[in-house]
């Protein structure tokens, strides 16, 4: 059965788009049919991170408004044939996205794909609530830093109240993806530790993505880090997070740059 996943955070620039591309590619690399949708109307970026910016013809708003068929707007990845992108509009106003229209598009995608991953815009306004509206589960992207943790807490509150799932009285499964983590600085007491953030936000841990220059390198060339440098530390962390999303029970570690060396083992596991 298809799963709709929203990648959200509240705070901007914490790594939602990077994570959407990397998790989407990792799930596709494991054989699932995946579509990633850019909900950041007016500030689209997922096309760039995926390296598909020159292939955008129609976008989500065109499909929502009935100006284009879904099949015309979907862009199939050049490296993985089971990975597709539905881009956001760069020129239109975000009010052009209607709730019913988005619901229809998601329903249609559910028939074609195993995973539908929604890259949320920053903030807690309409764009963010529309992106989470039809989700079956959520990945909350958080940096180990006070304002990011506070905004994640706010987003968790919205996930539990503003989604279709919450309104129908169902539980919304939420997973914490801690990104841009620097183990050395956390150990020196300069940065919030994994356990601090987990204790404050009280949601299960999906993965810890280390701060790494490989992420910038991958976005420079327009390729998800899990495709561009699959053995790098962030790619391995994303690949493991993707396996946990798919229900595998594997312990969370912080992969380090040195191959074969795994950092501290974290006792907590992600809930399926």
């Amino acid at each position: 059965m298809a799963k709709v996943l929203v990648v959200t955070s509240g705070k901007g620039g914490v790594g939602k788009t990077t994570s959407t591309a990397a998790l989407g590619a990792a799930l596709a690399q494991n054989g699932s049919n995946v579509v990633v949708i850019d909900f950041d109307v007016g500030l689209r970026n997922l096309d760039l991170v995926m390296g598909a910016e020159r292939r955008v013809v129609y976008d989500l708003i065109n499909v929502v408004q009935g100006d284009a068929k879904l099949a015309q707007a979907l862009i199939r990845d050049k490296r993985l044939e089971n990975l597709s992108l539905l881009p956001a509009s760069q020129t239109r106003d975000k009010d052009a996205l209607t709730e019913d229209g988005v619901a229809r598009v998601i329903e249609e995608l559910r028939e074609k794909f195993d995973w539908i991953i929604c890259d949320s815009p920053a903030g807690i306004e309409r764009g963010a609530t529309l992106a989470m509206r039809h989700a079956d589960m959520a990945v909350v992207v958080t940096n180990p830093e006070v304002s990011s943790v506070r905004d994640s807490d706010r987003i968790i509150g919205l996930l539990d109240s503003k989604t279709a799932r919450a309104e129908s009285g169902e539980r919304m499964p939420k997973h914490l993806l801690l990104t841009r983590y620097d183990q050395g600085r956390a150990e020196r007491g300069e940065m919030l530790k994994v356990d601090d953030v987990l204790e404050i936000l009280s949601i299960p841990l999906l993965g810890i993505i280390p701060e790494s220059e490989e992420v910038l390198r991958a976005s420079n060339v327009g390729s998800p880090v899990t495709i561009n440098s699959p053995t790098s530390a962030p790619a391995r962390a994303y690949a493991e997070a993707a396996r946990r999303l798919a229900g595998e029970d594997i312990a969370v570690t912080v992969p380090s740059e040195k191959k074969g060396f795994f950092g501290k083992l974290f006792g907590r596991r992600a809930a399926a």
Partner: protein
Amino acid sequence: MNLLSIFNKRTSAPVARDRLQILLAHERSYSGQSDLVTALREEILAVIAKHVNVDRDKVLVKMDRGDAVSTLEVDIEIPTPTKPKLAASA
């Protein structure tokens, strides 16, 4: 740089954690209150009002989000009913 500043630098993360814990406890009980809590409060008030007269301010509905479960705390202050008047026996 003196010894104290090195010490302070090393311990800035625990300060961040403590500040967050205090702030979020506050935010969750106020603006963090979801529409659900507001709706529950109104409906609980309506049910109570059918049977007893309560002061709106004396009804407290609070949601505490926890790891596996959340708790809903409902605290209602009901005035002690005044003794029925003996004159009624007339």
